[in-house]
């Protein structure tokens, strides 16, 4: 699923979403009806949502919140947060992997499976091949901002409809989890 959503490809989103549901939920008519209802509801919701204020005169005290967006435009695939550059080593750092497993089991496994199957959140299979390591770590450590501002994260929320919780994972711990994800994706 994840690999077919391209960054900033808003126009194809509905189509992708539909094809996703179709592939995931098998083709019963009931399910299709439900999906259509959801899609229509979502579209209505979007179109009814109030426009964000653009008029600076009306809200003169609002700081121009550009920096985050700008950084996203600069490198849209790295996400938003404190993690700017991650250096990956080969072979895998085994100590990180084993710490990463423990963190996964405590804080992630309730919603993320290791295969491609989505339960509450997306399955992790191939995530390190489709996301930059920085994006993954920012999503884990800065999830509230990511869900507010990062287009990719927002697409996932629209898909899963459950906000990914802030699991109070430190950047160091997120790096360990990333190493485990790499192992899960077959890296040695």
């Amino acid at each position, binding site marked *: 699923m994840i690999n077919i959503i391209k960054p900033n490809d808003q126009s194809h989103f509905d189509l992708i979403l539909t094809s996703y549901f179709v592939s995931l939920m098998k083709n019963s008519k009931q399910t299709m009806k439900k999906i259509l209802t959801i899609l229509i509801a979502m579209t209505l919701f979007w179109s009814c949502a109030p426009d964000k204020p653009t008029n600076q005169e009306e809200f003169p005290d609002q700081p121009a919140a550009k920096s985050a967006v700008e950084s996203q435009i600069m490198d849209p695939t790295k996400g938003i947060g404190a993690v700017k550059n991650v250096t990956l080593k080969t072979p895998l750092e085994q100590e990180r992997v084993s710490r990463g497993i423990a963190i996964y*089991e*405590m*804080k992630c*496994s*309730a*919603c993320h499976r290791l295969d491609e199957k989505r*339960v*509450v959140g997306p399955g992790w299979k191939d995530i390190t091949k489709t996301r930059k390591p920085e994006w993954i770590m920012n999503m884990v450590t800065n999830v509230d901002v990511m869900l507010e501002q990062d287009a990719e994260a927002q697409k996932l929320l629209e898909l899963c*409809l*459950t*906000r990914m*919780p*802030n*699991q*109070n*994972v430190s950047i160091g711990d997120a790096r360990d989890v990333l190493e485990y994800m790499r192992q899960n994706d077959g890296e040695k």
Partner: protein
Amino acid sequence: MKTIINSIGALALVASAFLMNSCQPKGPQEAVVGNAAAKVYVAPGQYDEFYNFVSGGFSGQVSVYGLPSGRLFRVIPTFSADPQTGYGYSEETKDMLKTSHGYVPWDDFHHTALSTTNGEHDGRWLFGNANNTPRVARINLKSFRTEEILEIPNSGGNHSSPFITENTEYVVAGTRFSVPMGANKDVPISSYKENFKGSISFIKVDQTTGDMSIAFQLRTPGFNYDLSRTGKGPSHGWFFFSCYNTEQAHTLLEVNASQNDKDFIMAVNWKKAEEYIAKGEGEKVKARYAHNVYSEKTHMTTSTIKDEVLVLDIMKYPDIVYFIPCPKSPHGCDVDPSGEYIVGSGKLAAMMPVFSFTKIQTAIANKDYEGDFQGIPVIKYESALHGEVQKPGLGPLHTEFDGNGNAYTSMFVSSEIVKWNVKTLEVLDRVPTYYSIGHLCVPGGPTKKPHGKYVIAYNKITKDRYLPTGPELTQSAQLYDISGDKMQLLLDFPTIGEPHYAEAIPASMLTAGSTKIYKLEENEHPYAAKGEKFTKVERNGNQVHVYMTAIRSHLTPDNIEGVRVGDEVYFHVTNLEQDWDVPHGFAIRGALNAEILVMPGETQTLKWKPQEAGVVPFYCTDFCSALHQEMSGYIRISPAGSNTPLKFSTGDTED
């Protein structure tokens, strides 16, 4: 010319409007209407300036309001069980309410004491007293949870409590009712004078953990010990207690305990008591009392029964305690921020005496006594007196202070707050309260550095102030602005239970340290499942332990089989969330206790005894996500003696 006339006319109009405005009557009601709303309006999303911790009286709990808005944020379960959170019901918290009598799920919470360092608020803990089955509680101001409850032995009702010393060295607990103490307690009630004794406990507080232990008890004459305040600054090392029923009546106290023109304020030199104890004085006396401590690591209560206390009989050490005559049936006994002045509020007196700590010390040095009570020196009234506030109002109860040398006294009978100057004793202002004020609170009022700004009245009667709700009406608080010369009524707000004493502290002292989650890594609960991988169901005889996890939006395991009628099922629910404000609840049909609310990273346990065979649903009670309604599961109950295999799962769709 015309323009000039016009201009003059316009000027006259403006002037007359101005004059008219300034000539309007300046009654207090008019003044209130003008800007009261603006003074209490806290815009949506904005924070209040103060936390107001208000005792709940017979509700047994303490409530947390914001000031100046009067908005209720939270009720902290303390001495009463609380089925909505599971406090007092869950396996982890039920022992918090354990006493030497067994499980006591209710009490009468009268007074608060915010911890202090050097006589000023430090934002660490809030102490509270249980008036009925004598206990003192400590609430952690990071988690806003009751963390410790200590029972007080040799007490007939813990009213003059939990007042604290300047650096929170001690919390005191004085008995309201004197009772027979010693080996034989089965004595005629009419032998009061001979057999009944008072008892004042000094509870030592560990400065790091807050852990409470009874350091010593003073055995005192058989009076009723009502209220108390610590000395501070120059009077640090002393404690002052109001006593009534110095007549030592045991029946119809309304009349028989109101005979003497003067009762006593008891001045206790606790540093002197410490000296005696350091010398090995005092007697270890058998006593049974419970000490309950909740751990944030194990999420469990440890309850122990203690078996002795150290007692100092003040008859043997007459330089620990001195009596000061005080008219008439004194209630409040309040010490001003300087520590020099002690205000006695005689409920039946027509004036209020203010005693001087310096004069008390001089009188003691000069043995300026009018006599003694059973060997305890009674200081001459005039020798201890700074002066009297004349005609303050009717039925003075309690006094709080601002930082500008003013005192505010609640008048129960005349339903008013009276402002007066502590040094000059001159009455400066009075405002009505609606109705029958009991306690009152100035933020930081009992400390060396009051924050001032407001006084809050806690009223006993509301009558017509709110929409009627049948025979039982809300009790209430009223907020007054005291920043000017005249007190100004700003706001009424209803309270839980019956509000007695309350305190307020600047929000800025607490907000930064507020607990947001319990870290899963630090969860040492023996039945915690720190991750779905660790969920399981174990049978141990007829006990079934379910190690369950909760996260938006499913419980694991959510299908359980192999449980039988006659089993005791323990649902140990660990909330795997690590985000602020995401509790999960757990409830099951037919539970005879309560539900539980589980905070992020926490483990709590609900015990359940299935009564009949069938399949019983359970679910999350706290709306947690869009799929909250889906957060549920089933447990299959088989008849007693059946051999349905023990099974559990989540997400398995095939058998």
